[in-house]
Every structure is written in structure tokens, then in C-alpha cells.
């Protein structure tokens, strides 16, 4: 719906910024939905990537869009008081973001995220508790979405994706890490219009609708059979192992770090970091 403030916003229906503005206009600041950003078996790259968000940035997200009650990396509280925040949120309406895979080996003891009343709370416990209480469950990053590097063969911690663990609906926002625009854009959509349109892997079509190959700046080289023989060259890197043809993200368009650059722009192939099968099935990443 076009905003009365902007005459051309009607033509920008499909980009996240419009949706974000709408989100902000529609949200009553005192009734921001709660959000738990639970780090499970993760490198924590997704929360770091979130800190790289620009327009909107992470402060906009926290001030204007959601009430983040719990996050291991950013929250001021520690220990029992911190985990109490997690528990209190379970009794409210909240969005659960999980980054990292769910470690199941030895009852989850390969990923302990808190201690409560003397007992260890595993990532597995926390995902189970919050997963069944959350209004939406969003798996951010490839580990949460598909198992990712945390579950790489031979998977010593017996980790799995959030969906494989919970079995209930999970929106996947994969990437290694996930691009903060995909995360914030998905949350913005949820806040305004509810669940976005998802593909058969439950990824928002808005960000994961088209392959990297079909949007790539070097596509004309591929089409004419002109290939790079090593990294650093300007031609198509298909013969070096580029996974662009089998990976769906909008990386060629939105790129990374506020559209600064992306792997192909840095003369290296796509390694399929946002898809099912990363990293095991995407190797070798570079092959001469």
C-alpha cells in the first residue's frame, strides 16, 4: 500500500525497506514483540553479521522493531539473571531466532548455554523450550537452517538443523553467516504482514528466490564459455568450482556489508554457504 508520504513507494512494494517503514509505522512502540536470539552450536557469526546491518542497523531493530530479551553476546545481564530473562520470555508472545545447530550428543552436553538451579541447560533444552512456545521460529544461518559447519562430517557433536530437531514449522534464513538484510527483512515482514512467502525449503522467496548464477555479473562469460583458471581473474569461475548455479540468494544484487562487495566480486567462487549441503557437499571450494 503506497504511503501518503512517498509518491513512488508504491513501486517499491517488493523491497525490504518499504516493509520496514511499514513495520515501524504499524508498531505501537510499547507493544513491540519480544524476541529471543538464542545462540546454540554456533560460531556466533550471525549476531556479528547482524551488528554489520545498516539501514536499518541493529539499534533500529532493538529500539523500533523488537524487544530483544535474551542474547548471549550482547545482553548486559549474566548468569542466573540472564537465563531468568529467557524463562520469563517463554510466557509471553515472542519470536525465537536460533543461530547455530542443535547438538544432541550425550543429551546435548556438547553445547551448554546456561546453568539454572544447579543444572546445565543445553542448547537442545533451550531450543525445545522456546521452540514450542514461540509464535515464530526463525533459523538464522546455515547451521540452524541445515546443520551447516557445526554438523560437518563426521559431526562429532551430533548436531542437526533446528527443523530436524523440532519437527514444527521453522522459517529458514540461511547463509554463512546470514546476511543481516535477510534477517531484518524477514522480521520486518513478520511484523507487518505475518509469515513471508516461503519456498519448499521454508526460505523467504524475497531473498532466496533466484540462483546466484542467474543474477551474476559474470554470467556473460559463462554463456560464452570464457573461464577463469585461477583466483583473482575477472572471468566466470564455474571451472574453479563455483556453486552459484545451485545456490539461491540475492548476493549478486544486495551483496555484503551494505552492498560493498561479495565473493565473486573478490575474484573467488561462490561456495554455496547458504544452501543445504554446505560445507560437505559443496567441496572442494576451489579446484584448479
Amino acid at each position, binding site marked *: 500500500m503506497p504511503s501518503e508520504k512517498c509518491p513512488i513507494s508504491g513501486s517499491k512494494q517488493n523491497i525490504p525497506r518499504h516493509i520496514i517503514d511499514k513495520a515501524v509505522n504499524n508498531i505501537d512502540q510499547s507493544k513491540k514483540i519480544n524476541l529471543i536470539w538464542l545462540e546454540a552450536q*554456533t*560460531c*556466533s*557469526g550471525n*549476531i*556479528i*553479521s547482524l*551488528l*554489520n546491518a545498516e539501514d536499518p*542497523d541493529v*539499534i533500529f531493530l*532493538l529500539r523500533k522493531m523488537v*524487544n530483544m530479551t535474551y542474547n*548471549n*553476546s*550482547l*545482553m*548486559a*545481564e*549474566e*548468569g542466573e*539473571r540472564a537465563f531468568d*530473562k529467557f524463562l520469563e520470555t517463554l510466557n509471553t508472545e515472542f519470536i525465537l531466532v536460533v543461530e547455530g545447530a542443535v*547438538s544432541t550428543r*550425550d543429551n546435548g*552436553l*556438547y*553445547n*551448554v*548455554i*546456561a546453568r539454572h538451579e544447579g543444572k*546445565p541447560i543445553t542448547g537442545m533444552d533451550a531450543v525445545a523450550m522456546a521452540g514450542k512456545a514461540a509464535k515464530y521460529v526463525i533459523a538464522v544461518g546455515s547451521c540452524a537452517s541445515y546443520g551447516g*559447519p*557445526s554438523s*560437518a562430517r563426521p559431526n*562429532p*557433536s551430533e*548436531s542437526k538443523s533446528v527443523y530436524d530437531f523440532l519437527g514444527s514449522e521453522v522459517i529458514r534464513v540461511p547463509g554463512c*553467516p546470514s546476511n543481516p538484510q535477510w534477517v531484518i527483512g524477514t522480521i520486518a515482514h513478520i511484523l507487518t504482514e505475518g509469515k513471508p512467502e516461503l519456498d519448499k525449503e521454508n526460505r523467504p522467496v524475497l531473498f532466496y528466490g533466484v540462483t546466484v548464477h542467474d543474477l551474476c555479473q559474470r554470467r556473460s562469460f559463462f554463456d560464452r564459455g570464457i573461464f577463469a583458471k585461477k*583466483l*583473482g*581473474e575477472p572471468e566466470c569461475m564455474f571451472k574453479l568450482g563455483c556453486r552459484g548455479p545451485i545456490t539461491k540468494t540475492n548476493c549478486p544484487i544486495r551483496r*555484503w*556489508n*551494505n552492498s*560493498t*562487495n*561479495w565473493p*565473486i*566480486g*573478490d*575474484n*573467488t567462487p561462490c*561456495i554455496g554457504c547458504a544452501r543445504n549441503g554446505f*560445507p560437505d557437499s559443496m*567441496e*572442494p*571450494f*576451489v579446484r*584448479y
Partner: protein
Amino acid sequence: MVKIEKIVINPLTRISGFLEIEVTIDNHKVVDAKSSGMMYRGFEKMLQGRPPLDAIYFTERICGICSTAHSVASALGLEDALKVVPTPNDSMIRQIIHGCEFLQNHLRHFYQYTFPDYVNGPHINPLYKESVGDYRLPENINKTLSVHYLKSIEYSRSAHKMLAILGGKAPHNHGVFVGGVTVNMDADKWIELKSIVSSIKGFIDNIMVPDVNILAEYYPDYFENGKGYGNLMSYGLYNQYIDKKFKYVDPGVLIKNQRYGFNKDRITENIHYSWYIGDRENIEPEGEYVETDVYKKGGYSFIKAPRYGGYGVEVGPLARMYLSGEYTRGISTMDRTIARVLEVSKVCNIIEHLLGKIEFEPTSQKAYEVTEQAKGIGLTDTTRGALGHWISIEDTKIKNYSIITPSAWNLSPMDSNGVRGVAEEALIGTYVKDEKNPVEIGRIIRSFDPCVSCATHITSDRYKDISVKIT
């Protein structure tokens, strides 16, 4: 009546990864401490059998905030194994990339991870404590510093933007590779880098350095705690240069107030109190995988206990600033925090100087041959301290891969000789004012900038057993 109490802090938030700290307090003093790494994925096991060139992008995924550190150490290890030498220009560009990770990390560690212990704000959930804290700043200063917390986000983000210009994306860049870098340097990228680093430098020198001095002024008791053994180590950083503008610190150690040259053969790892099968003492970094056992009797951490010549040694910004002679005021919680801020200013200067030296040349990447058999070691100091990757290749695949991270050095458990980990030792003797609100503990631990996703690894057990008697 003397009161003895055990306090457990889990999660110890505002770090990278999952750490549990247990302290025993006797009449307000910490008499025992345990540092526990509470996560394990098994990267060294995963790397076995994989294509060697994949190690660079793969090991980045160990950690999201210091991903570049692993890419650099991995590239160095592979270059050692495959006998590849980057050109000076590519090497300098890679050092700029590495430097950008320092800028990002130290800004975020100081403002996002450290500040909430000393500054009450900004009032945005979950960035501030609703509960009572030990906040001593006058209201106007507290307000100003809360604004700085928010401002810092732009600058740490810009540091990652610089990284992306050269490395494609951050976290988990693509530009660091065997042979140097993949980016073709030109005036367009160069001037963008110069512009960004100049603005970051302005923030660091005009805001961040004064801010740490404010913390030091209002929390001077933190110069009196968190010392630990006082042993320090560095593998060297920006030490290929002689020119003072580029050089930072040579490899070296300080043990019991004596300086020694660094000798990598003195590095061992002990698993006595770690959740790994066996009790082999003084395991050396190269060799084969050791299986985990989270139910091991006596074990309390997934982090192993690296030691240098049997000593617990601290690594990180304070070790570097001290060993280089740039900051030798002391070793404590506050000294560690100040050193980190002074270091980021120094790295900023080094980046500017490197930008002045690099040429607009294309990369010198080649189609590298992976030999049937090879071994290599990549040692470098990085954001949190000394990092090492040990790689062995057999049948053109990775046979073994060992990683010892800075956080393993700093956050290890006790070893079989009864030598506590560095951070554990730093907690001993701490005066805790209020057991219900033991703010001292988290402040001391965070001064080490823990990264548990990095710290939890395995090592090997192929070579000799050295048995050590505990008398």
C-alpha cells in the same frame, strides 16, 4: 564465622561462545576458580580427509568475530606446507585485512562486551541491566558514554566494510587465500579504505582512548586485580618490518619477569581436566585426534590446557603491548583493557602506513599444486593473542589439523601439574564485595576477551609421552 561459598556464573555473557566460571569465595576472597568451555564441535576431526585448500574457508567457521584470524593462520600453514611465498604487496594487503579484524573486534569488545559492566546504558533491551550494578560514573558521563556505545557500532561496522572491500564479505571473508590475497588492488578501493580508516582512527583517538581513561579513573581498583601469573607470550605481529611505523612486536615470552625468545617446541597441551579420553600429559600439537568424553571423571572443560614450558602464559593485547615495550604499567584487569584500546589505535596507524606502501597491482594468485605429502605450521598473533594452525597432508588430503587458539591459552582449565589456567589464576585472591552480585568476576574474565568457539579443540597424541611427577 567464616563463610565459604561457591558461585557459578553461566552464561558468562558478552563474550564469544559459552563459558562457565565457578569461584569459591572464602570471606570475600576468591580461593579457587574454574573456567569451563561449554561447547564443542570438533573442527580438527572434521578437517581430516578434506581438500587442503578448503581449510582456509573451513577454519574461518570456527569463529564469527575472529574468522579472519583463522583464515590468516590457515593460509600461513598451507603456504609453509606447499612452499608458497606471497609477494610483498599481497602480503601487505593481507596484513591490512588482518588489521581490519582487529579494528572490528577491539571496538566491539570494548563497547559491546566490556562497557555494560561499567556504564549503565544505553537504555535499550537487552543492552543494559535492570538489576542493581556497581555503576560509579556520574550521570552526565554515563550518558555520554552510552552515546559512545551507540556510535561505536558505526565504526566497528565500517571496519568490516573495509574487510569486505579487500575480502569480499565479513564475517567469513574470501579474499585471504594461499599465496596472499585474491583482490586486485586499485586506486578506487585504496581511497575508499583510506577514507574509512581515517574516520575510524578519529573515533578511536578522540573517543575510545579518552573513554578507557574514564573507566580507569572511576574504577581504579581494577588495576589491583586480575593479574594472574604475569607470564606473557606472543608469536609476533607485524614483525617482518624494521621500520617503526610498521613494526609491532617480535615473538617472545616473559616468564617470571625474565625475557626469553619464543621456541615453538616448548608448546604442549594437557588434557587432565579436559573432556577428552585419556590422561596423556604434555601432548604435542602435531599428530592425531583425541576423542572427547564429556563424562570423564574430574574433567570440567572442553578447552585443553596449552602450556609453554609447563607455564601458563597470557596472550593478547596486553602481552603484545608489554613485550613490545609500548605499555608496561602493569598486568591487571584494567591494564588489559587499556592495552586493548591502545593496541587498536596502533593497528589503525599500521594500516594507514601499509596503505601508503602498497602498489596498485593485480593479485599474484596461481593454480597451486597440492603435493602428495606435506606438513606446515601457521603461527600468528591475532585479535585475542597467539594462534597456531598445524597441518599435515597425505595422499593430497588433510591427514591431521591441529589448532591452538589464544583463548585456549587464556581460558584453559588446570593441568595435571596443578597449574591453573591463566584466567583461573587471575581470579584467585580477588576481593568480591557482594557475593549476591559478584561483578568483579565477569569484569576480570571479560578483560581476556574470551572466545570459546575458538578455544574448544582437540589436539594430538602421536609423539613421545613426557611424564611429569607431581611432588
